[in-house]
Structures are given as structure tokens and as C-alpha cells.
């Protein structure tokens, strides 16, 4: 193992800084168990990269529920109010016209409008909330430097412990990961640009 760390060091041309150390697993089960252990070990800044959302992995990693719903709610409420305001202002306030004997404003007949706007804004809230929480779009990231990162979209499962992690240690961490059954332990470095 030591040597393949080194020869990776040899291959890197530019002046790099470390991002973290990765270990790959070949099945959902493995990474599921591994994740649990890493959490118990007390690591804080680490992440799993999986081709599919592995169920229960959140709990294993000890991360809580997603915040996306807040954005959805926000969007929805905004939408509904926008709709109401729109209809009231245009048909009842700015230029009230007698149309088919119907009231200038009523919450009933224009309800489809409120309704659709609610959904529209909520949908935007959801999507952009997700983007925001995932810090997307972010086209440049250290993990992309990993030689086999692509496989995580196919059938490989990967754990990366970041160098910022207080418990991170150049010696122990790779050993620990290996002990969890992680394969091809790799140091991820990104070049300073």
C-alpha cells in the first residue's frame, strides 16, 4: 500500500495539495457497514459516493433530514399570494369591469390561477432549493481528480475522508479504511490553480 501512495505522488506533476483519502467498496452492503464504522470511529468530514442512493446510508453516516421542503413551502406560499394579488389588482382594483355579471373579485372563480401559481413557484423552490443545498452547479471539485471517480456512477462505492477532518491522519486513516474492507486506497490531491 505504501508504494502505491508513493508512485501516485511521483505521477503528480504540479504542486498539489491533499484533499483527502478514498477507499472503494464493491457493494451497497459493504459501504453501508463501513459507513457505520467510520461514524463510530468519530470521523466528521467524510462523504460516500455511490451510484445509487443507498437506503439508510444517511443514518449510518449520521446526517439528518433534508431541508428542501422548507424551500418548497416558501415557494408555494409565495405563488398562492402572487396569484391572489394579481387577480385582485387587475380585475378588481386597477380596472374593474363588469364581466358576465360576475363579481370583480372572488376567491372562487380565479382559483385555478392561484392553484397553478402555487404549484409553479413551489416547483421552482424545490429544484433551486436542491441546487442550493447541494451547492450546485459546482463544476470543479477535488473528487473529480480521483482517477476512478467515474466508476462511482457505475457500480463502485467510494468513501472519502477529507483532510480537514480533525481525526484525519496520513498514517492511520488509510489503515483504518483498509480495515473496513476498502480497496485501492488513494490520496486525492488537487492542483493549486
Amino acid at each position, binding site marked *: 500500500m505504501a508504494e502505491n501512495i508513493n508512485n501516485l505522488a511521483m505521477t503528480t506533476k504540479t504542486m498539489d495539495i491533499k484533499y483527502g483519502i478514498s477507499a472503494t467498496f464493491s457493494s451497497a452492503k459493504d459501504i453501508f457497514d463501513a459507513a457505520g464504522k467510520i461514524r463510530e470511529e468519530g470521523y466528521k468530514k467524510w462523504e460516500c459516493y455511490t451510484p445509487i442512493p443507498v437506503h439508510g446510508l444517511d443514518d449510518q453516516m449520521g446526517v439528518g433530514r433534508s431541508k428542501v421542503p422548507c424551500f418548497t413551502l416558501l415557494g408555494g406560499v409565495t405563488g398562492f399570494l402572487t396569484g391572489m394579488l394579481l387577480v385582485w389588482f387587475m380585475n378588481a382594483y386597477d*380596472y374593474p*369591469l*363588469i*364581466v*358576465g*355579471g*360576475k*363579481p*370583480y373579485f372572488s376567491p*372562487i372563480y380565479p382559483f385555478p390561477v392561484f392553484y397553478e401559481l402555487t404549484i409553479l413557484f413551489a416547483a421552482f423552490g424545490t429544484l433551486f432549493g436542491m441546487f442550493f443545498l447541494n451547492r450546485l452547479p459546482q463544476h470543479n471539485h477535488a473528487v473529480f481528480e480521483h482517477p476512478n471517480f467515474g466508476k462511482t456512477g457505475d457500480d463502485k462505492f467510494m468513501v472519502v475522508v477529507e483532510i480537514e477532518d480533525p481525526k484525519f491522519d496520513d498514517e492511520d486513516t488509510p489503515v483504518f479504511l483498509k480495515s473496513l474492507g476498502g480497496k485501492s486506497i488513494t490520496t486525492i490531491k488537487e492542483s493549486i490553480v
Partner: protein
Amino acid sequence: MIKENDSLPLLSGKQYWKSLDELAETPEFRSWVDKEFPEGAELLDNVQRRGFLKTMAASFGLAGLGMSGCRRPEHTILPYGKSPEELIPGIPSFYATSRPTPFGFLPLIAESHQGRPTKIEGNPSFTIAGGSTDIYSQASVLDLYDPDRSRGSFSREILRKGDESSVRWKKLSSAKLASEISNWSDSGGLAIITDSADSLLRNELIENLVSTGVKHLEYEAIDPHLPEKTLASSLGVAENLRLIPQLHKAKKVLSLDCDFLGNREPNSTVNSRQFMSGRKVLSASDASKMNRLYAVESDLTLTGGVADHRLRLPSSRMEAFAALFYAEILKLQKSKDSNLISHLLKIGGDSEFDRKWISECAKDLLSKSQNSVVLPGLHQNKNLHLLAFAINQSLGSIGTCVTYLPVSKRSSYSFEDLAIDVKEKRISSILVLGGNPVYNCPNSGLQDLLSKVENSAHLGQSIDETSLHCKLHIGQSHFLESWDLGYSWDQSCITPVQPLIAPLYDTISDIELLAAVNKNTSSSHDLVVAAYNNLSNTDVAFDDFLRIGIHKIKQSFKTVFPDTSPFLQKLKPANLQLDESSLEVLLTPDFHTWDGRFSNNGWMLECPDPISKLTWDNALLVSPVFAKHLESKYPGLGLLPKPTMLNKSGQIAPDAAVFDDGKQKAPIVTIQVGSDHSITGPVYVQPGLADFTIVASLGFGRKHTGRIGNDLGYNASSLTHFGQSRILTNASCVPTGEFKTLANVQEHWSMEGRAIVREANAAEYQSDTSFAHHMGAESHSPPIYGKDLDKDLVFKSQTTPRGNSSYEHPDHNHEKSEEHGLHQWGMSIDLNQCTGCSACVVACQSENNIPVVGKDQVLRGREMHWIRLDRYFSSTQRDGAELPSDVQVSFQGVACMHCETAPCETVCPVNATVHDEEGLNAMAYNRCVGTRYCANNCPYKVRRFNFFDWNKRKTDELYEGPLGDENEPVTAMGKNPDVTVRMRGVMEKCTYCTQRIQESKIRTKIKAQRQKTLKTGNDGKDLILERDELKVADGGIKTACQQVCPTDAIVFGDISDPTSEVSKLKSNPRDYSVLGYLNTRPRTTFLAKVRNPNPRMPDHAVSPHSAREYHDKAHPSHHDEEHSSPH
């Protein structure tokens, strides 16, 4: 006047007329006018003409785009050098004039916008017509702007290329031609052929000429003078005797083939007004005073539609019927003259008539003998007119409700005489003065004579069939361009023809031409003045006479007559029987073109025939019985549609015709009359016809009248014979195997038992005056006004009550204020007064710039009329698979109802149609994007969509879009500048003539403010104007349809004013809303129809057929006797 040089063809009337007023001055326009038939240009070479106009359009376009460098195209305003007095730009002026017709001069008022006549109204000073007009006068203004009018005078040149020859027209100066013609009478004999008109001036001028040996021949295809001649001759009276009914005094009328309410008889406007005034029913007591009409006729006419009892009878048997009827009268009067009676019975023959019908009818007439009248048809033979006269005499109604006016004899010079004179070289020149004899009287041999004589000229408004046989054609001025003076038909007044505009082209009037021939150099104006001053007892000055437009003269009716029986004894029985193989043909003036004079008039051509609902064509009307015979004899003829499942199950009645994709497929047949005459035309099955009568109409099948009128319909004039009755017998009918599509605007004739037109008999009405409220879904659904049901009209109209609606309705208030609109407009249409004359349709078209869309588009169901006249038939025969023979006719004028809770408004996504504070259903064309949702959601289907640029494009090139030609500019001169001309893609509909409403409101307010200021001297805050001072007085606004209606069936006004006439009518128990149960709350409501049948008549039914059908369908359970007729 303001004239604007604007090239961009935008959507507005103002746009058009501005550009056109200006246009009329420009050299382009002038040259266009002159070049219309450039030297050597072939007359009917459309390709060349179109090409030419394309370039013209282009040059106009360029003219405007000249200064388009700046932010908007530059318009210039061109004021006068010296402005005429009394002319304020933007304010129309009105002139009294009149229209010369074979039925006398009709007094009119013409509206003029900056010198362009745009609208015709009746002259209210002509009190017996009460300011109403007939449909043709309404349409006549369009002829002035007909692009196919001859734009000057021409000499005909035959060009021969090898063996084929083509006609070319060389433009000449009319004035020069006139002076040239004036020499004809010197160089050999001159014959003048005129149509018949009661023009003082013309008769005077002609008499002068006749005294100098000039021959005068007078003809009419529909000869209005035949009866007065024949009656006079058969009675041996010196002067002609003109029958003038006084129908306002008539209580019982028997019409013998006489359509006195329709277009076939003289004075129909006055007749309608007088007769229908006897059918105004506002209370039970009126119902007992109601007059009664018996119609005996072969064709189903408007008169037959109004009739309380109608008997189908061949025109050729009318004489026999009259004889029997007279015999019956004499019997009932206990007459001693037994041999006359027996003679009459002999004439009647062993005929198939229903004797009970005759006797009961006779009894009924005798019951009010002073006020009973028998009217014979214009086209009938002398014997019938004699019999009718005899009956009236014995009824003693002569002098009360029928009068005979002695009128001067007409020229007796006939075509035969002319032929001889020409043959013997006594006549070397023929001058045809107006009219179109070659087309109207093809059997007169005139066209050979014209080729024989050395000089021949035709004065006509367009280059027509007659012109083609004359060496010279002289463009005739439209009556709105010329001076004249003439009698009304009943000779109760003399009325002027006053020009509103200088001739658009180099044309002259018949008066001017005759004056020239008379070597009389004075202008036609001076002649009229002179003629007027020569009149006896002219106490008013000529100018005042022009203002009033009427000079009343005393009618001296003939009162003493010889005893008729000796003349009656002379009558021979003519007992002919009709059957499938020997039919009778009745020739009538066509509704659209009359005798052909309106055959290039788009408004008339597109206005549906009130009975057949056909447009753009005439058809050979046959009875359902004969149609069935044809079907059986010629299988596969496809004359009557195969009964569908819905027909057989009694769900709906069968259509009257076969429709392919909504286009009526009519088989073409040949009618052979005698041995040598035949006509070929499409067949239309008409319920209500006598079984073996075929009705053919004159006036169609023109070859040379103009681009829209050419080759429409069939030409029946070959059957006419000058000076003879228009009933032909011994005719046969053979299909040619070909078919023609007819543009019928109403595919379905039955009301299907829906309570749309609500009718009752007088007796029923007396027992239950609010019968209309007991019909329709709303009669057994919760009242739409809920708790406010009994509130008054004022309340209902101002604060649209909620009723049972789930919504609170906004009041008719000004925006964000508590103040109701000043007025609340509403309309009431009295179905009992409507005769179906359709004048309202054309009046509306003229007032509101409604485009003509052409036959092809009508076939596609895209006619644009804002008001349509629905015609329903109803019958006792309700075998779903059979077409009835005996029908009752119900008319209903349907225009936008201006619903208070309008379904159309709710669904418009862009607020293009909304309500205003006075209850008008506004239609903002410029806001409309054209989703057509409103039209779908209108239960009355009164909205019309501009599928194409009707106003901009030629009707035959609509599908070429931007590549097609634009209309001639001149057509736009007739547009009403106060109404937007709609572009394609926008919806339109009746606006209650909102332009008239706005104008009156503005006038009223200005008047109020100015007068008060003058009175009080305050012009500031101390000036107080009450709400009522700002209101338009009741009757101050007349809609176009209301103004034209001879019977005042339409009343418009402010329903928030309980004293207004319309409010009174709306509170009448006969008032009902069509489809009221939909809670649309229409502002236009109808007064239910009341018929007045005679209970003792054999064909009496307790209820009108339509009412009976409604009750049978609405309550099938108790199908009781009270609703079934005696037999």
C-alpha cells in the same frame, strides 16, 4: 372639409373615408376612373383589370410610404380653400330626396358625411310610411359606390380578329354624346324606350317629344300598370283605375294571390304599416279588435306567412275561386241576380275547393262588410281583378278600406308597333332610357330592332345586356346624383329627387338626356324648380319643399262605378286541371334582385330570402308533393333527404333539402312551357306551395351586370311576355341530372317544439294573457330572480339582482362609484308585428359597415349579418319523415340580446367584451384577439367572426391572402365613418347602434350645459345640472333596425325609465326572454305572437301549430284533445 392623405389600410371607417375623400381629388383616382375602360381594353377582361388595379394599389401604397422616414407615416389634412357654409366636419347632414321605382317615388331622407351619402332612411313627413323604408331603398345606396358602374359614356366597337369578334368600348364625353343624340330626332324618326316611372318631369319632357312625333314605348318586366289598365278596360272607364287599399281601416282581408305585404305589390311599406297596425295587441281587448287575414295563394309569400288562414291554390285557379267566392257572397246577401250566381258557379266549375272554407270566409267578411276587402295579385289576369272589384263593390268597402284612384293612361305603343315602324323605316334611331329591356323582355325582339336601326343608345348605370346591342352606352347617374320630381304611388304627394353628391363619374341623368333631346339647355335643377313652380297650389317655396321633401296633393278617388254583372256575364269558364305532367309556373320578381336591377348589389344578394332563406341564387320552388313525385319518378335525384334515425324517431323533423357538409345540393331541372319556351334551374322544395305550382323568379341569370352579379342563378325572363299575366300553365319538369349547391343560411326549418317563438291564438290569449310565461323550461324551473322576482324593471336593470346565482352580481354602476348608469338600454321586439320583410337586415348592414362575404363563404356558414331573421315552419303534419305541405310561418329577428349576465363576457380571456354601466354588452374590436370562445358560448349564436379581411380583400380572392387584390377604394366611400371597419381575426356583433347612442348622449349633455349656461349665466360651480337633464329623451335614439321597420315591431329605449315605451312593452304579459331559463337575462325580449284564426273555419286549430308541438313535446304524458285540431 377635412381630408386626410393616409395610405395605410387600417381597421377603421374613419381611415377609409378620410383617405377616400382625399382620394376622390387625387389625379390617381381620376385617372383610375377614366382608365377603367381604357381605349382598346376589353370590357370583361378581368385579368387585365385585376392587373391594372394591382398596380393602382401599389401606387397608392407608395404615395403613403413616401415620408415614412420619421417615427410614423405622415398624414396631411387638406382643408378647403373656401369652406362651404353649414358644413362642419364630423357632423353628418341629412337631405330629403326620393327613389324612383316602378311603384312610384319613395320619399327618403339620405344621410351624408362630408358629401358622401352613406345611409338612407324613410322620410317621416311621408306620414303613412312613418319614416320607414323598404329593403331596396336601404340597399340602393350601395349601387352608388358599385365599382362596376359605368364610369362614363362609351361607344361600342366590334373588333374582328379573324372570325372571332370582340366588343370594345371607347370612352367619350357624356355631354357631347347627349348633344349628338339630340340631333337624332331631326334625322329620321326616334323611338324612346323607357321603364315606367311616375316622374312628372320625365313625362312632361317625353310628352313634348311625343308631340313632335317621337315614339315613346314604356315597359316593365313586372308591369305595375297592367291591372289598372285592364280593370279600366273591362269596366269601360276612361282613365286607368289604380287600386289603393286603406288597410288601417280593414278588419277582414282576403288576399287572392296578392302579396301586399311583400316585395311583389306596390307600396308594401305603407301596406305593412297600415295593415299590421290592426294587429297590435297589448291587452285582451285589443285581441278582440284584431284584424284577420285570409290568404289564398299558390306561392308561400310574406302575406301568407302573416295570414290567419291560408289556402294553397294554383294561381291559375284563382279566378274560379273568386267566382265561387263572389257567388257565395251574393247568396249570403240574398241577391236576386240568380243567373249571375249560376254563371259564377259555372266559372267556378266543379272545382276541388273546400266549399266550407269559402262559405265561412265569406260569412266572416260579410260580418264586417264595410271593413272587408279582397285584394287581387298584381300578376293576375284581368278577370280576377274584375271579380275582386265586384266583390269589394258588393261588400260596400269601396271608399272605406279600398279606394280606386283614377290615373292617367300610359303609352300604348308596343314592341310590335315599334317593329313595324322600324321595318317601314319610320324609326331610324332608338334611345333606351334606363332599364334593361333586352334582358327583361327577351321576347320583344328588341335586340334585332336595335341592330336594324342606324342609331341606338342606352342610358344605363352599368354596361348591361341592352348596352351590348346599342351603338352607344351613356353612363346614367345614380338617383343620389341627380334631380327629378315625381309622384308617390298613391299620388298623395309629389316628392323631389335631390342629389347629395356631384356625379362620381362622367354620367348624366335621364332628365338631363331628355332635356338635351328636347334641345332644352337649362340644367336639371332649373327644370325641377320650374316644374315645381308650375304645380298648382304650391304655397311653400322650393327650398322649403326640398327641406320637407313632400308636397301633399289631394287624391280624388273614383266613387261611382258601373254595375259589374254585365261584364261578369262575359267571363268564360276556363276549367283547367293541374297535375304532375301539366304544371303551372308563376313568375315573380326575385327577392334579391327584384327584376334584375339589384343584381350587382352585394347587400341584396346576400340578404336571405325571408321564406326560402336562400342567398346569392334564385331557385325553382316546388311543393313537397311534387318533390315526392319527382323523387319517385327519377330515383337518385336526391331532392329530399333520406329520413335519418332522428327523423324516424320523431326527434327532429327532416330538412327541406339535401345538405352535403352543410351545403345544399339542389338538382337542376328544365321547365318546359308550351313548346318553345324553357328555363333551367335548381329546385328548392318549399313547404306551403300549391301542389303543382312551380315558382320561378325573375331578375337572376344576368350575363352583364358586374363582377359579383354575373352568372348567378338562372334566367327566367324568357318566359315573360310583355303586357301579359305572369302565370303560365301546361308546363313540365325534367331533371337534367346535374346539381348545384345553394347557399342557404338556415338549414333547419322546424322549431322542434322548443319554446323559441311563443305563439297563441287570440282566444287563448284573451283567456290567458301571460301564456308566454307558461312555456319554456323557465316556466317550471325556480325563478331566476329568486326573491327579487316581483321587483320592478328599474331595480332589476340597475342592480342586477342575485336571484339564485352563487355570485353577487355587480350593479350597473360607474366604476368604483355608487351611481348607476344614466340609462339602462333595452329592446323589445313584437313578434306579432314582424312580417319578415328583412329591411332591418340590410339597414343594419348599411349602418354598421357589415361586409359582404360572397356565396362561397355563406356556404361555409360565415355570413356576417348582425341581425338575422329566423324563419320557422310549423305544421299539423308531424310525421318525422315527411315534409309538410300546409305550414304556419313564424319569424323572429335575432340580434345580440345584450344579456346582463352575458355568457360571452365570462369566457373572453382578454376582456374584449364586457358590460358598460348602461347595460350594453360592449365589443371592443381593437382588444379582440379572436379566440371565438364568446361565439361558442353565445346561446343565441349572434356573434360573427371575421374569418378573412372581408373589407379589404375581394370576395373571390380571400384565399390568396396578402397576394390577393384589395377592394376598389370606391367601395369604401359608402362606409359609415362613425363605425369601425373591422379587420380579420376579430369578433363582431350587434351593438344596439352604440354610435347613435353615444352621439345622442353627447348632444343631450352639450345642449343641457349650454342652455343652462345661457339661461342662468353661470358657467362655473353655480351651474347645477340635474341627472334628468342629462338623460336622452325617450325615442331620442332609434337603432337602424328600429328606424327602418314599417310596422314598428322593434322598440328601443331606456328601461330604467318606467315611462319609456320600451319599459311599458316589457311589462306587458306577452313579454318573454328567449332561453330565459339560462339566466342570461337578455336586454332584448320578445312580445309573443298572437294569431287570430276564425273558429268556424275548417282549418281552424285551437292553438298555433308551434305551440301545440311545444306542448306535445314538453308534456308527452297528457297528449290531450284540446291541443289537437278538429280533423
